[in-house]
């Protein structure tokens, strides 16, 4: 049974983007509400799919092209436990960012361009997450990447333009790598459908270029996910963008087009080999450790947060890598499942608290007009809501119970210890402590230090729409820790782990239709 809601997840934001461009030209002030309505609809659909879909996966064939002799032709949209979670992240963080933008973007011009590009970015990410065809992933990847280039440069000042140029050049290198790898795949497997590629590869189609394809894809999507040797663009791009866009980029984009695709391809498309698994684990551990050391010395608030994104994504990659190593060795699959669950859970949590932290940074910039931690101080009195929500987010990211970050880090560390990766477990704990240190620095300098006399104006709390999205995200940060409870974990997180662990299941649901 095909689920007719799946193509709507791509079609609605596309329609929203182009309608905004036309109607926004004639009626000023309406684009923000159109974007809000679009995102509300998407949030509703994606949560409905998560709740109603449950463990079952659904496959949608575009234009009704059925497989011929078990060989899939045409474009497929696939919705399973893992993509359902990522779709929910995209829509929820997107909705809250749009709500926040209503006040925040009032200082900028060309409102209709902003909301139109925002909807396009959402459409691209939804497409990447849903697509079951590797070339289609590339197309949607470009849609989201190009709109994010434009959004990073939205302020059109010197810094923004420099950051977006860097982002574009490295993004183009990434796209080139991905396209090159897709060319190799098409050459050796004669197909572009992910499930079919897997069948072709496992039937002995693995030529000498099999490792080259894996390395190219890991590099390409690693650039998008900003794993450590490929991270150069992220601190500039994420700190120069307008704050709601930073929240989208850090909270959602690097996951949807980076981490998600890496996990999907390396678990469901390629055979897991031990060498590749060790490489991925090393990259993850490296970005986890180096990212946090780069972060702690920063004085620019948004730059500090951006480096922490690299470090936290390291946790996700590392725990998925531990799962891959255990699966490649073929032993103790329940620990592999635990590690992968921890990674996915941390990905969800990171979307919530990093989105919130960037929104907090935007609120401080909105009221105090600075991003430099040394020029802030004593904001806790004048901005109570911003202060308390950012405290919640800082505690989450540093892994203090009862916030969500604690539980996911705990699962990751426990899985590492049980899998006998003692060094990685210790590293994860140490990185978490350094994270706590750098967020104590943020809290102290921004909110609790002596008040700086430099502010010419009186600092006031930000407008209601901004407060609304910050408080909602803080509540989500608390609620997400419920996912660690046994009863709830099985219904939400386990389907995602199952689809990644059960390699035959992903392909059989498409070819066996």
């Amino acid at each position, binding site marked *: 049974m095909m689920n007719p809601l799946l*193509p709507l997840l791509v*079609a609605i934001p596309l*329609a929203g983007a182009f309608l905004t461009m036309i109607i926004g*030209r004639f009626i000023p002030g309406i684009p923000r509400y159109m974007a809000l309505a679009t995102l509300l609809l998407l949030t509703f659909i994606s949560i409905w799919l998560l709740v109603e879909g449950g463990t079952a996966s659904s496959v949608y064939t575009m234009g009704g092209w059925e497989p011929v002799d078990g060989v899939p032709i045409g474009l497929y949209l696939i919705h399973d436990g893992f993509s359902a979670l990522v779709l929910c992240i995209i829509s929820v963080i997107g909705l809250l960012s749009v709500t926040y933008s209503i006040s925040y973007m009032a200082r900028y011009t060309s409102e209709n361009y902003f909301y139109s590009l925002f909807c396009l970015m959402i459409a691209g990410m939804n497409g990447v997450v849903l697509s079951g065809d590797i070339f289609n992933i590339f197309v949607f990847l470009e849609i989201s990447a190009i709109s994010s280039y434009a959004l990073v440069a939205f302020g059109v000042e010197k810094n923004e333009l420099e950051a977006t140029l860097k982002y574009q050049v490295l993004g183009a290198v990434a796209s080139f790598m991905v396209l090159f790898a897709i060319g190799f795949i098409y050459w050796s497997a004669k197909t572009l459908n992910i499930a079919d590629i897997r069948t072709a590869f496992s039937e002995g189609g693995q030529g000498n270029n099999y490792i080259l394809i894996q390395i190219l894809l890991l590099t390409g999507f690693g650039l998008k996910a900003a794993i450590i040797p490929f991270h150069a663009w992220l601190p500039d791009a994420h700190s120069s963008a307008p704050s709601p866009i930073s929240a989208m980029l850090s909270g959602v984009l690097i996951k949807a087009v980076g981490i998600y695709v890496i996990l999907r391809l390396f678990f469901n498309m390629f055979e897991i080999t031990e060498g590749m698994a060790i490489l991925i684990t090393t990259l993850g551990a490296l970005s986890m450790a180096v990212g946090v050391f780069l972060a702690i010395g920063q004085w620019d608030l948004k730059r500090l947060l951006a480096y922490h994104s690299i470090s936290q994504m390291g946790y996700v990659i590392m725990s998925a890598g531990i799962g891959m190593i255990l699966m490649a060795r073929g032993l103790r699959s329940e620990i592999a499942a635990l590690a992968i669950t921890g990674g996915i859970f941390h990905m969800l949590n990171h979307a919530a608290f990093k989105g919130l932290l960037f929104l907090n940074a935007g609120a401080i910039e909105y009221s105090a007009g600075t991003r430099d931690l040394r020029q802030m101080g004593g904001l806790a009195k004048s901005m109570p809501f911003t202060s308390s929500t950012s405290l919640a987010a800082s505690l989450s990211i540093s892994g203090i119970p009862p916030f969500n970050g604690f539980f996911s880090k705990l699962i990751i560390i426990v899985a590492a210890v049980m899998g006998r990766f003692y060094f990685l477990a210790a590293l994860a704990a140490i990185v978490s402590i350094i994270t706590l240190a750098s967020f104590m620095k943020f809290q102290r300098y921004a909110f609790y230090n002596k008040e700086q006399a430099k502010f010419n104006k009186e600092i006031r709390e930000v407008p209601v729409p901004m407060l609304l999205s910050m408080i909602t995200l803080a509540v989500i940060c608390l609620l997400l820790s419920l996912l660690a409870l046994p009863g709830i974990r099985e219904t939400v997180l386990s389907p995602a782990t199952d689809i990644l662990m059960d390699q035959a299941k992903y392909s059989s649901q498409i070819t066996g239709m």
Partner: protein
Amino acid sequence: MTVIVKKTTQLIAGIVFLYGIYIILHGHLTPGGGFAGGVILAGSFILLILAFGSDFLHLLREERGSTIYENLAILAFLLLALSGFLAGAGIFFANWLPHGTPGELVSAGFLPLYNIFVGIEVAASILTIFLALVIFKEEILK
């Protein structure tokens, strides 16, 4: 530009335009299609602008028009895809029009319609990019 260039352009532009339309309409039968034809269509406009020049305000107005055409074409494309959704029992991009005889100009159901809107979209967006670059240069010179 000189009279010779202007006159030649006037003669050629119409033919280029017609050729673009030919490529778009035969998209489902011959090589080419919406994208290639759209580029040729935009080429004829760009040729005219290059030969005759255009004042700044005029360019701005033209850019506004081409942007609107671009958005409308995409929306029309989406509507066509959605029509399959509504008519073909929930299948996006369903080709529910009669397919006709293969090889005829009017055949293949929705494909020629998709090609036409892709052609308009590509022509309008390439013209918009060209105009944006020209307008940017004019603004720098000011």
